[in-house]
């Protein structure tokens, strides 16, 4: 992996980490949900620091290039996050529906 790409990855990792920490500091996200982003940024950092390990791993797993594997891993992570978010949103929709129903029934004048 070229030194330029590795520097780029370090930058991306740090940007992701800083953004996550800033959001946490503002209190706009519970720590529970931030862990997956923090770990993602650490994974990117790891790839930049020890590319040889990942290059070896990608050969074993049968990827044509290491970048394919990295992209594959991140697409998988993002899909997982999206599914979890869909579940969270659906749960909230149920709760909001219940709230609207109960408040509307309470507001009813006889």
């Amino acid at each position: 992996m070229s030194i330029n790409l590795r520097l780029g990855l370090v930058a991306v990792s740090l940007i992701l980490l800083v953004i996550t920490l800033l959001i946490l500091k503002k209190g706009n996200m519970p720590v529970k949900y931030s862990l997956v982003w923090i770990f993602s940024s650490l994974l990117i950092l790891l790839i930049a620091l020890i590319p040889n390990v990942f290059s070896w791993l990608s050969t074993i797993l049968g990827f044509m290039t290491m970048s394919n594997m990295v992209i594959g891993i991140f697409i998988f992570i993002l899909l997982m996050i999206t599914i979890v978010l869909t579940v969270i949103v659906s749960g909230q929709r149920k709760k909001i529906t219940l709230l609207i129903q109960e408040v509307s029934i309470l507001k009813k004048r006889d």
Partner: protein
Amino acid sequence: MGMKILLIIPAYNEEQNILKTYNSIINYNKKNKANYDVVVINDGSTDRTEEILIENKINHIKLINNLGIGGAVQTGYKYAYKNNYDIAVQFDGDGQHNVEYVKKIVNPIIEGKVNFVIGSRFIEKDKNNFNSTLARRIGINIISFFIRLVSKKKIYDTTSGFRACDRKIIEEFQQDYPLEYPEPITTVEVIKKGYEVSEVSVKMNERVGGKSSIHSWKNLYYMINVIVSIIIVGNRRYK
């Protein structure tokens, strides 16, 4: 007799029909010494529906936000449950349903034979009956096929919104009711939970006022959603 019966009328922008529908029920009550109670669920209408409901002192609940048909109807079931109704009937506010048939669909419940009754357009073939369009009938038949596949029971009018249920089903529905495509899904749920379900023949009127938003891609999307839901619900295990 002496059973408390509630008609749940979901209404979204029904300024043209709601008063007519309400008056038809009141007139029916007077003529037949019936005492069907009414609750209109105003699902966040943006037209004059709410003003009409207030002006005419119609018993109603105004949802503080639009919920869609499933959430609106469920509000009616919650109201029925809290106010100890024995039977709840879902009744459209757009003039498609005829109050004369309410008696026919609640009778099997009053006699204690069944828990859930669906008012069906397709049991008796009648040319004068409004049977809806060919495309819609094909869709209804496909849904019917899948319901039979998972529940082993033939339901003819799978999308009918003209339905009556007893106290037990009211309790089930107030607890849990699908937000989307509620008719076919709840039918499967009720059968799977072991309740007695029957279908009785009713006539429906063609929609007066308002417009039916039939769009082919939307229908395909609807069909896929409903079929997947039926298969999922059909494979759940209820004790």
